[in-house]
Each structure stands twice: as C-alpha cells, then as structure tokens.
C-alpha cells in the first residue's frame, strides 16, 4: 500500500511515467566502470607490493610464503611471537583443513567451523585482495562463516597472489564470473586493517569490537606473472 504511495509521490515529483525504467535496467545490465585510479594499474609484482604496502599502512601485517603448506608453521610462529594462545579456529574449507597441521604445528589445537565467542584466533581464506587500498574481500558460504571475521581477537587470512587484483571493479568482475550477474553471497566483507575507533577524542585505537590484529599470509602461487589488467 505504502509502496504505491511512495512510488507515486516520487513519480509526481519527477514528472515520470511508471514505464520509464529502461534507462535503469540498461545500467544494471551493463554495470559500466567509471574512473579507476591509476595507482591500481601495475604489473603483477607491482600490484602485490602495493597491496602489502597499503595493508601495512592500516596496521595489518603481511608475510609472504612460497607455498600453501608453509601456512601451519607460519601460523604457529605468529602466535608464539605475539604470545597468543595455541587455539586456532579454521574456516571449514577443505584446502585449509587439509594442511599439515599435526606434522608442522603440533603445538596448536586446531578446530574448524563457525566462531565460538571464546575463540582467540581464526584462520580463513579470502576471495580477493584489492591492491588499491590493501583491502581483503571475504564472503560467506559453506566454507566461510562470517563470524570468523569479527568475533576472534586475532584474524589470520590466507590470500593467494593469484587472488590479488588492482581495483574494486576487477574484484566485482570475478564475483560475477563466480556467482552470475546480479547475485551475491549473503555477506561480502571488505576488510582493510584491524578494527579501530576514533570515538574518544579522535585518537585512533585498535580492536574496538572486531579483531585487534589482522595478519595476512600471502602465498606466491603464480609463476613470475606478466603485466596486464583484467577484463570485465
């Protein structure tokens, strides 16, 4: 009832006919790209370097690993270095669950699933890394409970070099390729550094409600890649 009243009021104000929707439909179908900042257009090595530089600028930490199975040791190292408990909650992602945890990190207690409020640390995968601002793109799904990105105090993320793109638009192109046009997983999280607040006298404090620490394990899974920006 209010729907027709509101739409009617809008149409009267704009002097529009209810059938005038082709412009809107065309824009949704074409989803044109606008200005994309020049800084995102670099060769692959340049994009990875920019991603790392931007993530570190907002208090994330980044470690580069040559292969995925180096992850357990790197995680154990990280937790030890920061004096953190050895309990780790993995995203229920076969690729992460299948890593040599028992062999390479026997001191850790590893479980997978959605976050328990007591979990100190989570380890998740990512859908993309966006070099432009050092941003991670994560999303919900059977292998990605959203609570893992927010409840634990320490969030560790495995990001593959092949997942790093220059700009947000390239990440959307990959989402459309994976999920079809006009469809998204329930939740898409862009994460740029650990949680923070400036609400007390405009001083920046980390760890407001979400993670105090964001640590990115960047896996070099591409051969020395050439230059090139991706198509839409």
């Amino acid at each position, binding site marked *: 009832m209010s729907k027709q009243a509101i739409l009617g009021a809008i149409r009267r104000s704009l002097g529009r006919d209810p059938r005038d929707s082709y412009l809107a439909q065309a824009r949704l179908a074409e989803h044109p790209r606008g200005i994309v900042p020049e800084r995102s257009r670099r060769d692959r090595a340049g994009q990875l370097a920019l991603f790392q530089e931007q993530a570190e600028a907002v208090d994330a930490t980044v470690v580069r690993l040559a292969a995925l199975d180096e992850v357990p040791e790197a995680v154990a190292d990280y937790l030890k270095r920061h004096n953190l408990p050895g309990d780790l909650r993995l995203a229920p992602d076969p690729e992460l669950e299948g890593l040599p945890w028992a062999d390479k990190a026997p001191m850790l207690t590893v479980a997978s699933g959605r976050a328990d409020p007591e979990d100190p640390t989570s380890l998740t995968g990512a859908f993309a890394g966006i070099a432009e601002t050092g941003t991670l793109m994560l999303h919900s*799904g059977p292998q990605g409970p959203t609570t893992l990105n927010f409840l634990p105090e320490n969030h560790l993320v495995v990001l593959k070099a092949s997942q790093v793109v220059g700009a947000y638009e390239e990440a959307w192109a990959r989402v459309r390729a994976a999920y079809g046009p006009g469809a998204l997983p329930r939740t898409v999280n862009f994460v740029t550094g650990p949680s923070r607040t400036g609400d007390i006298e405009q001083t920046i404090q980390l760890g407001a409600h979400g993670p105090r620490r964001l640590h990115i394990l960047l896996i070099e899974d591409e051969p020395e890649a050439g230059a090139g920006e991706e198509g839409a």
Partner: protein
Amino acid sequence: MDSTSRSFKDNAKTALSDAQLRRALDNMKEGFIAKRAKAAAKLPEFEALRDQARDIKNHTLENLDAYLELYADKVEAAGGTVHWCATADEARAAVVEICRSVGAKTVTKGKSMIAEELALNEHLEANGLVPVETDLGEYIIQLRGEPPSHIIAPAIHLNKEQVASDFRARHTEFPAERQLEEPQQLVAEARAVLRQKYLDADVGITGANFLVAETGSSIIVTNEGNGDLTQSLPKVHIVVASIEKVVPTLEDASAILRVLARSATGQEFSTYTTLSTGPKRPEDPDGPEQYHVILLDNGRSQMLGSEFQDMLRCIRCGACMNHCPVYHSVGGHAYGWVYPGPMGAVLTPSLIGVEEAGHLPNASTFCGRCEAVCPMRIPLPKMMRHWREREFERHLAPPAVRAGLVMWVFFAKRPELYRFATGLKAMVLGALGRQRGRFAWMPLGRGWTAHRDLPVPEGRTFMELYDERQRAPVRDGIVRALRRGPETERRDAAGERDAA
C-alpha cells in the same frame, strides 16, 4: 527525536560558554580537516571522482522510482522483506511488529542516522524492548541519555574524562579502583561490556550507507566492526534506510565509496565495508534467519523535483560540518535535531518544516567551505539561501528583520538614492567618530555593538573613492604600479585618502 531547533540562538549561546565543549571541538582541527586534505592530495583522481559521484547520484535520483522497484524485487528474490514506509510512524510500527513477531527482548543497534530520525530507541523502550547501541560513540551517548552531536562521530563533544566518569557510574561490575585514564582502557572496557550484548540480542538493527539495486544488497561502512557483529549474530537483521540511499550497481557503490571515507575520516577506505543480501542461505554456517529492510520516505519524495533535490545526493560523510566555522563554535547539539552543520541546515527544514527549523539556514557565514569539501558537490550555501527566501516569503522572519530588509530593498533598487544615503551615513559617522576611531554603542545597532565595537567609516563610501580613482588616467596607474611595486602603490592610495 523532538526538535529544539526553534531555540537555536539560545542553544548556541549556551554552547559558546561551555569550556568542556570548546576543548572537545578543538580536536577537530588537526583531526578530520588535516586528514581529509592528506587523503585527497594522495589520490590524483579525487576531484574527478567527486564529479563522477555527483553524476551517479543525479542519474539515480532522476530514475529513483525505477531503481527502488528493481532493488526491492532483488531483496525479495534473495528471501528478504521490504517494508515501504511513507512516514516515521509507519517505520516505527514496522520495526516493533517484527521484534514482537519473534518475541524479542534485547535489540542491538549499529549506528544509524535514520534510527535517530525515527527516535527509534525511545520507541523501542516504550514497547518494552531494550535497545543497546554498539558503536562506541553511540554507546557512550546512550549511557548519558544524549543525542549524537555529529553524524559520524556522535560523541565528538565529549572528553575522555567525561567518558571515564560515565563508565565508572554505569559499569559497576568492574573494580572501582581500575585505571580509566587512557582511551585504550576505555575502548577495552566497552568492548568487554558489549561482547555479551551482541550474543544475547534477538534482533540486530543497522542503517545502510547504500542500497544496491543490481543485487538487492544493503551496505554498511564502519571502522569498529560493531555493525557486523550486530547484523550477523542475532536471528533477525533489520536494515533501516531512506529511499535516497539506493545506487544502481556494485561499480557505482564502489565509485562513491572511493570518496566517502576520504571525505569523512581521511582514511583511504574504512576498515569494514559489508554487503548483506537476504537472510542466511541453507548452506551457510551462520547469519540471521530473517532479513528486513525498512524503506523510509519521510518527506524525501517531496524534495525531488524541488530546489532541494540536490540535498538527496548526501552520503552523510560529515565533511561539511567538520569544515564549518559555525559548527566548530557551537557543536552539534545546538542545531536541535538529528542532523547538524550545513547539511542539517538544509535537510532539517525539509524534513521537519521551516517553521520549526527556520533558524538553521541562518547559522552560516556563507564562507563556502562546506560546498568546497562536499564529495557530492552539493551547493549547500545556495540551498540555505533558498530556505532564507522561503522563510521570508512565508513571513516567518521576525518583524524587525523584515522591516529592515524591505527598507534596504527600497534603497537598493534606487542606486542614486542608495549612494546618497550611504554617503550621508559615512560622512556623519565619520565626523562623529573621528576622535575615538570606533563606536561602542549606536541606536538600532545593538546586535553588533553588544559584542564588539563598530569601526568608524573613513568619511567616504567605496563608490565615491572608486569614481575618483577611475578619473585618474588608467595608464598612469599601471606605470606607477610597475615602477614602485604593490607595496608603495597601496601606500599611495592610503596617502591620497589621508590628504582628501
């Protein structure tokens, strides 16, 4: 929220003599202003991105009915429900109805200006629900029973000592002798207190920075992560958003996001930007079982097609108030309703009426800084002038102001008479005040002289001096200026004036 905008003048007076407030507002200068300037300088495309953001939003507003219908279809296709609400009353009723239907007791809330516009907390309480604000700033002012004083930094009017004493008074579960001097200690305590609230809540309410027509998603932008805990832990997620929040595509949302954080806090990107589309899917391990969108009009459809349509481009970044000398002086509470600063001076009369908020468009020095920094290039000063005109037309301005303006118009339309009158005034005042050089009092001039002296005129008007100098050969002037440089040129002019 009930408005006190009618008493803006008294509110402002009180604010000006509040030393705590002065100290808190002083933080803004090194804070937001410097950070925005740095972020803008770091991105060469920033100005072009502002033009683009304006154009995207203009296109969306021109086709708003179409985009809203497409958006709502998508929300429903993803399993969500859209509640179209023409008025604040309808929106409040819809929220309460959803909470009732799931037997809710506690409701966590992410920061939402629309919820403030609806005075949602009071309404939830009146209906037996317990709302808990989760954004740190909102949480602090909820403890104090105050409204926000800034659209992105709701507790900007407070100092850390005030927050510490509120926490001591309210968080009695902690040892009384604990340390609360440092911001970090305050943040940690709020984190601990709110942790349990997220887990206990039955319903989570957030606002939306954008609604995406292409996918039926709502977008929230936060730094704390409170909005994400609010919307992913309870079994029901309610989004309260106004109709102008819609943008066409994911690309359009990203394009505007590029100017949002930079303009607001000077960050390149806020920490968390989250898109939510419908409720939890069958295969998802977590997420809410219900997803509702309260889509609020509340006067906005009437702004379309009017001289205030441009205001609907606003993305609530707060840059206009961060750069406003009036806001710096009086803070946000003086404006008396939800939206302070320049954007509030334009929006508030549109939403609650110029009778109620007619003072706000006058709370401006017309310095133009708000428009210069607005990422959506909203002509704020021009729109404040529109409101002044309407206030005048509708006889809402006080009789003395009206009489003064009518008299001024009479003279302004008759240049000869105007020059004669101002010339006479300059001469008389110039002669009367030659000795002291200033007036501390003047009939009809108390509005000025109560706070500062009036300097004595030079004895002649600008037009008289201008005429005289025009008579001197232009070429002579140029030659003189070139030969002697600007300094001597100015001294010359001063000398001529003394001699006259």
